[in-house]
């Protein structure tokens, strides 16, 4: 976030000087005074936006989700159909109980902790077959990541971005006070707000 901040602050004295030349009349300020004011004003605007924009403003309210007692195939179908890499998992009362993502499938297909797709493929090619067969009997609840990382509806944009960054995750389900899923925020949603 700070890098973002600095890259927008690279106004030079020259830029300001050129701008001042275009303003008719004598502007009673030096270019460097303007830069000082600009930097402080920019930081102020940034922190205002970061705390004024809430998770509920940037989230996608219509969430594709699955329930924990559905077969794994259901998650596979939905992730394929909507071209997404992860889904929140709900219990029968619509409370979020976990998240299922490509990572969970890969982990199941390999002995390694958090393997990549290529590592799984390597194992499939080197050994006689893949472990795919074993998925058929499993329920989503068996392979999902739980407990899920979620965020409250009134969390600020700064908290959302910080959580995504700190945990290196790509999506963050948004919940109300009683763990009911109300939306989801993907990394790309944050980029859209900033630009």
């Amino acid at each position, binding site marked *: 976030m700070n890098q973002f901040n600095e890259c927008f602050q690279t106004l030079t004295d020259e830029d300001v000087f050129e701008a001042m030349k275009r303003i008719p009349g*004598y502007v*009673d300020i030096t270019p460097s005074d303007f830069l000082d004011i600009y930097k402080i004003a920019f930081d102020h605007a940034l922190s205002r936006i970061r705390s004024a924009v809430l998770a509920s403003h940037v989230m996608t309210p219509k969430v594709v989700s699955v329930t924990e007692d559905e077969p794994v195939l259901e998650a596979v179908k939905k992730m394929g159909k909507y071209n997404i890499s992860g889904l929140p998992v709900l219990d029968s009362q619509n409370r979020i109980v976990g998240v299922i993502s490509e990572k969970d499938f890969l982990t199941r297909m390999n002995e390694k902790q958090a393997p990549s797709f290529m590592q799984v493929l390597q194992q499939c090619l080197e050994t006689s077959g893949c472990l795919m067969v074993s998925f058929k009997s499993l329920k989503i609840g068996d392979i999902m990541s739980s407990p899920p990382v979620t965020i409250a509806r009134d969390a600020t944009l700064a908290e959302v971005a910080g959580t995504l960054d700190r945990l290196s995750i790509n999506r963050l389900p948004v919940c109300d006070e009683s763990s009911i899923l109300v939306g989801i925020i993907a990394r790309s949603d944050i980029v859209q707000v900033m630009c």
Partner: protein
Amino acid sequence: MKNYFKKMSGGGQRPPKVTLYEILWSWAGAFLGIAPVAWLNYSLLQGTDFVYIIGSFGASAVLIYGAVRSPLAQPRNLLGGHLLSALVGVATYQLFHPYPWFAAAFSVATAIALMHATQTLHPPGGATALIAVIGSDKIHDLGFWYLVFPVGIGVLIMLVVALIVNTLAKKRKYPEFWF
């Protein structure tokens, strides 16, 4: 110590030069603003006990006809700065005139402090306060009338001219704010 002198080196850039258009409007404004005040002083009311023009008006002209965007040139600063400084100047003279060096310094310093505190900073105000102390007997004899003649009347005339002239100039806008 090194830093102390380093601070004096500046390092910043001076603002750009104004266009010929600006220079001409500044000239016209200053001429039309000073003219009626000077005419009052030298022609209409010559021979009376009053003074209608003081040096600080020249300084105000620089701001209200030459740097119209400046916060220092706005009506609040022009009126407030001159009147408060005049008040400080006259009071200082009456209290401390046996010690002219002290009265002179005290009047200017206090005028600046008061203008800052009231958000009416107007550089010519410092001159207005100083003139009340170091001025002629004619000025001293005015007492607090100094706030009305020459300061109040002169500043009002110059303000009206600034409004007329700066509004006529297409690329100018005056004031930025009133109070």
